[in-house]
C-alpha cells in the first residue's frame, strides 16, 4: 500500500533557527499517528508545513502520490487536508451551526450570490450530522463565542471535519481540558479515526497512548524515534529527552 502522506527531507529555517530539520515522515491510509516532543521541538511548524500555511526551506511533501509542497493553503485544503488548531480558531460571532455549515459549504458554493444559504440541504444536513458527532447539536443556535472552552475545542474539530478531509491534523485537541472533557475528546478522536487518517500532536501521554497506532518523536526539529506506542515507551533515548519523569 502507498502511504497517504510522505515528507522527504522536510526542513524549515527561521533565520538561524532550524525549526524542522530534515524530517522523513509517512502515514498510511486509516492510521492514527502521534507526534510528540518537548516544547519547541517543531511539532506545530511541521503541521503548518503540511497544511501549506508556511512553505518549507527544503524538502518535499507528497499527498496521495502528488507533490503538494508548493500549493497554497486553500488548495491543500481542497486536496483533503484539514487542521484543528491548538489555539481555538473558530468564527466567534456566528452560531455553532453556522460555524460548521460555512466550513462544509467551502467544498461547493462559494460564489453563489442568489440562493438562500440554508436552502442547500445537503450542506445543512452534513453540518447537523457533524454537530451530532461532536456532541454539540443542542447548542446549534448559540453564538460560538459563548461556548465553554472544551466545547469550543470540539467545535474546532467539527469545522475541520466539515471540509470533508481525508487527512485530519489535530494540534493538541485536549490542551486545557478537564479530565471529563479530555475523556470525551479521546472518544471523539477514536470515532473519527475509524473513517479518517489522523495525525495528532499532543502532550498528554494518556491520549497519545490510547489513540495512536504509531508515534513519532521530534527533538530540536529532528526526528528522534519512530515506532509503536510500545517501542516508544521502551526507547531509552526518548525517555531521556522527553519522557523522563513522565509516568506512562
Amino acid at each position, binding site marked *: 500500500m502507498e502511504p497517504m502522506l510522505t515528507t522527504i527531507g522536510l526542513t524549515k529555517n527561521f533565520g538561524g533557527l532550524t525549526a524542522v530539520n530534515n524530517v522523513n515522515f509517512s502515514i498510511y491510509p486509516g492510521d492514527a499517528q502521534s507526534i510528540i516532543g518537548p516544547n519547541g521541538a517543531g511539532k506545530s511548524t511541521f503541521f503548518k508545513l503540511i497544511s501549506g500555511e508556511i512553505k518549507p526551506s527544503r524538502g518535499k511533501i507528497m499527498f496521495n502520490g502528488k507533490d503538494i509542497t508548493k500549493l497554497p493553503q486553500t488548495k491543500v485544503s481542497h486536496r483533503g487536508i*484539514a487542521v484543528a488548531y491548538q489555539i481555538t480558531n473558530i*468564527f*466567534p460571532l456566528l452560531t455553532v451551526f453556522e460555524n460548521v455549515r*460555512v*466550513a462544509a459549504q467551502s467544498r461547493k458554493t462559494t460564489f453563489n450570490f442568489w440562493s438562500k*444559504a440554508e436552502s442547500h440541504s445537503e450542506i*445543512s444536513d452534513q*453540518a447537523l450530522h457533524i454537530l451530532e458527532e461532536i456532541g454539540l447539536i443542542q447548542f446549534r443556535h448559540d453564538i460560538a463565542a459563548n461556548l465553554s472552552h472544551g466545547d469550543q475545542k470540539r467545535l474546532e474539530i467539527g469545522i475541520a471535519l466539515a471540509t470533508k478531509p481525508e487527512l485530519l491534523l489535530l494540534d493538541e485537541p485536549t490542551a486545557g481540558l478537564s479530565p471529563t472533557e479530555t475523556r470525551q475528546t479521546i472518544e471523539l478522536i477514536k470515532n473519527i479515526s475509524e473513517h479518517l487518517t489522523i495525525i495528532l500532536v499532543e502532550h498528554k501521554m494518556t491520549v497519545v497512548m490510547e489513540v495512536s497506532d504509531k508515534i513519532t518523536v521530534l527533538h530540536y526539529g529532528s526526528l528522534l524515534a519512530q515506532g509503536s506506542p510500545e517501542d516508544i515507551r521502551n526507547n531509552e533515548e526518548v525517555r531521556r529527552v522527553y519522557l523522563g519523569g513522565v509516568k506512562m
Partner: protein
Amino acid sequence: MAELQSQAAHAATTPAVMSPWDKVVNLVSRYPVAFMTLFFILFPFVVPYQALATQIIIWGLFALGYNVCLGYTGMLSFGHAAYFGVGSYTLGIVLIRLWENVWFGLACATFMGGITALVLGYLCIKRRGIYFALLTLAFAQLLYFVAFQWVNLTGGDNGLRNIPAVPLALPGFSVDIHDPLRFYFFVLFFVVLALLLLQRILQSPFGRVLEAVRENDPRARSCGYETSNVRWLAFIVSGAISGLAGGLYALYLHFVGIESLYWVTSGQILMITLLGGMGSFIGPFIGAGVFLFLEDVLSAITVNWMIFLGTVFILCVLFFPDGIWGTFVKLIGRKSALKR
C-alpha cells in the same frame, strides 16, 4: 433531520414570552426591507422639509454600500469618497456630454463605481487592517487630485456645473422628477432595489462567506476559501452601490463638487456607519438620519457645528460602540433576558 434543519434555518432565538418592544425588534430584524420600505414611504411627511429626507436616504444608501465592506466583511476603507465621487462625476459627464437619459446615467455611475473599486480594490486588498485603510485613502486622494487638475472634464475646483434637469424617460411617456417629493420617491425606488439585492446576496452562500471572513480570515482560508477574492468581490459590490449613491446625489444637486472625492467624504461615511451601527441594514440609515439632521440643526446655529457633531461621535464610539441601532437591539435583548 428535516425538522432540525428548519429550526436551524430560523436561527433567531425566539423567547417564550415577548414584550411589545421585543416583538417590534424581532419583526424589524426579520423583515428589515419590508419595514424600511414602509417607513421610508411615510418618512418625507415627518421631516422638516423633503429635501432633507432625500439627502438622508441617499447618504443612507451610500452607508449601506460602505457597510458591505466595514460591517459585513470587516474591511475598514478610508477611501470610499472615490467610488461615490466617481459615480457623481460619471452621471454628470454622461448627462452633459453623452446622452440625456437618467437611467443610462445612473447605470453608468453604478458601473464606474464598481470598476473603480475593481481596480483600486485589486491594489489594496492584499494588505490588511491599517495598511488597507491607508492604501484606500491614498488612492482616493489620487483621484481627487486628478479631478482637481483635469479641468476640461470635471470643472476642477469649480466643480461640474449645469447638469441638465432631464425628465425621467419611461416606456411611452416621461415624468418630471425634479419636484422634491417625486425625486424622493425616485431615489427610494433605488434604495429599495439595493436593499432587496443586498439582502439576497447576504443570505446567499457568498454572504455567509463574507461573515466568516470578517469573523476569522485565517480560519476561512484554512477551510479552503480564497479570502482575498472574497474581499475583492465584496469591495466591488460596495463600490458599485457607492457609485449609485453618488450618481443620485449629483442628480439631486444638479452639480458635482470637487469635495465629493475629498477624504472628508470618506470620513463622513465612516462616521455615519459607525453612528448608526454597522452590520445591519437599518443602522446606516439611522446614522445618515442622525448625522444630517444634526448637521441641519447645528449649522443653522453656528458655523462650527462640526465641533458638536464630533463630540457626539466620540461619545458614541466610546460608550455605544455598537452604534445607535446596535445599542437599541442590545438593550431590548437584555431587558427581555432579565425578565426570563
